[in-house]
Structures are given as structure tokens and as C-alpha cells.
């Protein structure tokens, strides 16, 4: 009982509650640009949590995350899409969107499970490069399997709906406290629920028994096996779970974009996912949330407010730094700086600044020799 009380009083928990309240109220105060940016961040957060579970806890460096996100996104469009209508000639099954979402996530999981015999065989760095191969092969398929993916032009994402409540503009019309709830506002709450689930499940996976088993696998596979951890099974499982996270991230991305194209799921996306979890601190779910928010929102913010920043040039005008490039400079530098000065991620800077909480809420990590 008293333990629970101190946990409630700890600043981390307070911050979490405050954040939850603020994010719930966001649609009432902020304009559409912020909602859209926030939704992109939510999609990134889900994917980053999945990658940090894989890379951070088991030490498997994967750059295939964009591929599994693509499987999720295209899977959703295929399962939910009607097909044969409008410009897009891509086929679809026309299933209810919620079912399509679940199936798409499962499909990503299956893709991950199929790949896991390869990923389980390969150690660290070999897996990293082999997984790049998966991204390129995936791109090739996306461009060429036009019946399923719409090829170069991509395909439309069917709007989400739940028990007859549609997540589109006006059907049914909904006004709460003088704010009209159209597509973005509705998706916002869907995104929050998904992020909440992903966060909750991720924390329990990392902090619980599987997480400890996975960390043992990372530190020494032999020791893990001796302790009774089925190394191959755990590696396959975590790869599957991580792929499902990526898939869910892809589904949300498709819903926000309304339309998906192969270009969105290239190597850049994988590298960005990796940047997110490195900046947040490998293996930390909370860090993944921070890193994902930073990496995914920065380019959009710089693009939107670039005019009022003196050192930025408008895109295409030449001279100065374009907003997109400034964002890439920022997160490239952030990766290097974090690894140089705060290997545990930006989250650890907080603890370092507040030494009193560092000892109570988390034990300091031992330095490896």
C-alpha cells in the first residue's frame, strides 16, 4: 500500500498523468496542423517502442522496421479497401476497418515470424545489414505488385470506423464544447488509445519477466541459455512482437495520410526509427516516446515555422538551410551527441540533473568493462 502511494507521488508518474490530461485536451485548443503533426508523432511512437524492445533489450540491430510498417499499412489498405473504385485499381477485401487493423498487425507479425529464422541466425551487425536488404526488396515489391499496392502511385486507405461511428469528416456530425470534431480530432483519440495500449504493453514486456530474459539474451546468450531461457524462441518472439508494433504504426500512418505510397517506407524511415530510439536511449520505452516525438515532429515544425526563423531558407529558394535539411542536421547531430555524452539517452540527463530521484526510481546502470 505505502509502496503504491510513493509510486503515485513520484514525479515520473505525475508527469505521465499530466501529459495524459494535456493530450486529451489538445483537440480543443490546437489547430489542424498540430493535430496532424501529433498524429504522425503517435505513429512514430508506436513504431519506436517496438524497435526499442527489439534493439534495446535484445541487442538485435534491425533496419527493417520500415518494411514491417509497410506490411501493416498496405495490409490495412488491402483488408479494408473496397477495390476497383476511383483512380486506384488495387484490389481489396472490404472488411470492417477494426478487423482490418487487427489483421494487418497480425500480418506484420507473421512477416516478422517468417523472417525471424534468418534474424535469429544472424548476430548483431549482420542482421542490421541483412535487414536493409529486406527494406530494398520490400520497396521493389511495393513498386511492382501494382494489383495489391497500386505501384508507384500508391493506394487509398479506407477511413476508419468503429461500430458504425465513422472517423471521417461529418458522418455523424459531432460538436463538443464548440469544437467541431472532424477527421483529425476523431483520429487523435484513436491514436491516443493505440499509443496508450502500445506503451502499457511495452512497459510490461520490458519490465516484466520477458524483458529480463531478453536482457540476459543481449548480455550473454550462453548465460541466458544456462538460466533456462530458450534463446531462439525468445529472439523469434521479440522479432515478431516488434514487427507487430511496426505494423500498427504503419496502419496509423495510413489512416493519417489517407493515401500511402512506397516512397514513405524507404530506408530513411528505418534510419529515423533507429534515430528515435538512440536519442531516447536504447531499451527505454519512455525514451522511445521522447525520441519519436522529437524526430518525427522536428521537420514538420521547422517547415511550418521556418519563415519566422532567421537562419532558415524557404524550400527550393536556395541559399541558407532548407527546413528539411535543418531537421536532418539536428537529428544527425543529436544521434552523435547522445552517443558521445549521454549513452543512456536524453532521459538520463533528467536523472543526472536530479540525483535524488535517480537513486530512488531507478538503479544506476553498471558500466560494462
Amino acid at each position: 500500500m505505502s509502496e503504491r502511494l510513493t509510486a503515485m507521488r513520484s514525479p515520473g508518474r505525475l508527469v505521465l498523468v499530466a501529459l495524459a490530461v494535456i493530450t486529451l485536451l489538445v483537440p480543443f485548443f490546437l489547430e489542424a496542423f498540430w493535430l496532424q503533426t501529433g498524429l504522425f508523432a503517435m505513429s512514430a511512437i508506436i513504431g519506436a517502442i517496438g524497435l526499442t524492445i527489439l534493439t534495446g533489450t535484445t541487442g538485435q540491430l534491425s533496419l527493417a522496421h520500415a518494411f514491417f510498417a509497410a506490411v501493416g499499412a498496405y495490409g490495412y489498405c488491402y483488408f479494408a479497401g473496397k477495390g476497383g473504385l476511383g483512380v486506384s485499381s488495387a484490389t481489396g477485401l472490404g472488411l470492417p476497418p477494426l478487423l482490418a487493423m487487427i489483421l494487418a498487425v497480425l500480418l506484420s507479425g507473421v512477416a516478422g515470424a517468417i523472417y525471424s529464422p534468418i534474424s535469429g541466425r544472424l548476430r548483431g551487425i549482420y542482421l542490421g545489414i541483412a535487414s536493409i536488404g529486406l527494406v530494398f526488396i520490400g520497396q521493389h515489391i511495393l513498386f511492382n505488385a501494382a494489383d495489391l499496392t497500386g505501384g508507384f502511385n500508391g493506394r487509398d486507405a479506407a477511413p476508419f470506423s468503429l461500430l458504425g461511428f465513422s472517423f471521417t469528416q461529418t458522418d455523424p456530425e459531432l460538436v463538443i464544447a464548440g469544437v467541431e470534431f472532424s477527421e483529425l480530432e476523431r483520429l487523435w483519440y484513436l491514436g491516443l488509445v493505440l499509443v496508450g495500449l502500445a506503451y502499457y504493453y511495452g512497459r510490461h514486456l520490458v519490465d516484466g519477466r520477458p524483458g529480463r530474459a531478453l536482457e540476459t539474451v543481449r548480455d550473454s546468450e550462453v548465460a541466458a541459455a544456462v538460466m533456462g531461457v530458450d534463446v531462439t524462441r525468445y529472439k523469434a518472439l521479440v522479432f515478431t512482437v516488434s514487427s507487430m508494433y511496426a505494423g500498427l504504426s504503419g496502419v496509423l500512418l495510413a489512416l493519417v495520410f489517407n493515401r500511402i505510397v512506397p516512397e514513405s517506407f524507404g530506408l530513411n524511415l528505418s534510419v529515423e526509427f533507429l534515430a528515435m530510439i538512440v536519442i531516447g536511449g536504447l531499451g527505454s520505452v519512455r525514451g522511445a516516446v521522447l525520441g519519436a516525438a522529437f524526430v518525427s515532429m522536428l521537420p514538420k515544425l521547422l517547415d511550418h515555422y521556418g519563415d519566422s526563423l532567421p537562419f532558415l531558407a524557404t524550400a527550393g529558394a536556395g541559399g541558407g538551410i532548407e527546413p528539411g535539411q535543418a531537421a536532418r542536421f539536428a537529428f544527425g547531430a543529436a544521434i552523435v551527441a547522445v552517443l558521445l555524452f549521454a549513452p543512456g539517452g536524453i532521459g538520463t540527463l533528467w536523472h543526472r540533473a536530479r540525483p535524488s530521484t535517480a537513486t530512488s526510481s531507478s538503479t544506476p546502470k553498471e558500466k560494462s568493462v
Partner: protein
Amino acid sequence: MTQFVELLINGISLGFVYALLALGFVMIFKSTRVINFAHGSIVLLGAFLIAKLAPSLGFVLAALVGVAGAALVAALLYFVILRRVRGRAADTVTIATIGLDILLATELARQIGQDVLNIGDPWGSEVVRFGDFAMPEARVAAAVVALLLLGGFLAAFKLSPWGVAMRASAEDGEAGALMGIRLTRMAAGAWLVAGALAAVGGIFLTTFPTPGIDRTSGLAALSAFPAAILGGLDSVLGAVVGGLIIGVVVTMSAGYQDEISFLGRGLSQVAPYIVMVLVLLVRPSGLFGTRELTRV
């Protein structure tokens, strides 16, 4: 048949260029256990420097300066930044090179903009004929230069004191250090050589038949990843064999694209990765790589 032989010869010459790049990966991996994701940017940097300097200095001098510049930047990346990167996982430094790659690639893309630069090489679009077979002059030059460099490198690696020290420190760093080998200097040397090889590779990746240097030229160097991996990341011989395999595969899948169109358009860009994944399925450490043994 003529087409087949022609493609084979062209593939081999391209393969030597990939071998130079793959050798850079292998050098860096052997000495510092890092995969250098910034390699593509260093390739682009070398080519960019040469293209900028060639009009004023002439191609040969510009090439020398460009190669030296790329080598210096690679060594500095290691010496100034990567050497100090700390972290629990062994792959931390590799991830740091991704960060450096983003920085370098973005700056180069900003400098190049939408331009397509000409590297100012003397070969142009001339074609040499060997009997029935035609081959671009630039590709002949590529094969000759790459062969000389690879031969020189292998000789130095096997025979010179530097090569012995390099191999010793790769075999067992601690024992090497106790024997008086300066590991940091060896590692910086490996990065220096890798940078120089990358720039030479960059010259031949951007001469005819490719249109020139644009902001995405560094991506072409990514095809050297599969070359290094399928040969085995810690094998010098593997880098050469891997490079040749990838070169032939790329050229063949581009040359016969009409015959294999059922596999989709643009197959030559993914073919290296397909070959790599297939090889890794059978041999997880590449063709010539040392298998990782587990000792308890």
C-alpha cells in the same frame, strides 16, 4: 553470346570498383569492429571534391587532392568523434556512423543541390573494342586502377610491417597493444585507407556510363554493403570476391532486364540484396567470414 561476354566483362570491371568499396568496409570492421554507414557519404565527398577542383587543377591533381581529402575526413571522423563514443552495446559506434552519415550526406546534398556534376575525367564516353566486344574506356581504367590498388594493398597487408601490425591488432587487440602496436594509430590508419579507397571508387562510380554526380550518388555505394557482407565482413579476399559477384549480378540483371521483366522493373537495384540474403541464409557469416564461436 556476344552480349553475355560483354556484360560479364563489364560486370567484372564494375565488380572491381565495388571491391574497393567493400575492402574499405572490411578494413574498418577488422580494425574497429564497426560497420561504417558513412561510407557512402565519403564516396560522394571524394567525387564531389574532385568534380569541384578538376576545372582549375586538372583531373589528375584534383583526383589526388580529392582522394587525400576523403581519406583525411574518414580518419578524422574516427579519431575525433567515433573513438570517444561510449555505450554498452558493441554496435553503438556503428549507430554513431549513421548519425555522421546523415550530417555528411545532408551537407553534400545542400552543396550539390539539383546539379549533376561532371567529374572531369579524361575518358569521357569513349568505347574500346576488343574484337567483337565493346567496353567503355572508363570501365577499362576502373579495372586497371582497381587491380593495381587491390594488388598493392594485398601485398602491403601480407608483407609490410604495417600490414603485419594491422593483422596482429585485428587478431587480438590486447596482445597487439602489449607488443607495442598503437591501436588507435592502426585504427585511424585503417579509416584513412578506407576513405582513400572510397574516393577512388567514387571516381569510377560516377564516370561513364553513369550520368555524373548528383546528390544521390552516395546511394550507389550502398551496393558495396552486400558485397562486403556476402564475402564475409572480416575477410579481405571475401571483399574482392563479393565485389565481383555483386558487379556481375548488377550488370547482368540490368542487361537482361527484358528477359527477366516478370520479376519486376528495376531489378538490378535490388539484385545485390537478394543475393546477399540468399547467401546469408546458407552461411550466416558470409562466404569467407570467420564463424563466430561461442566459448563458455
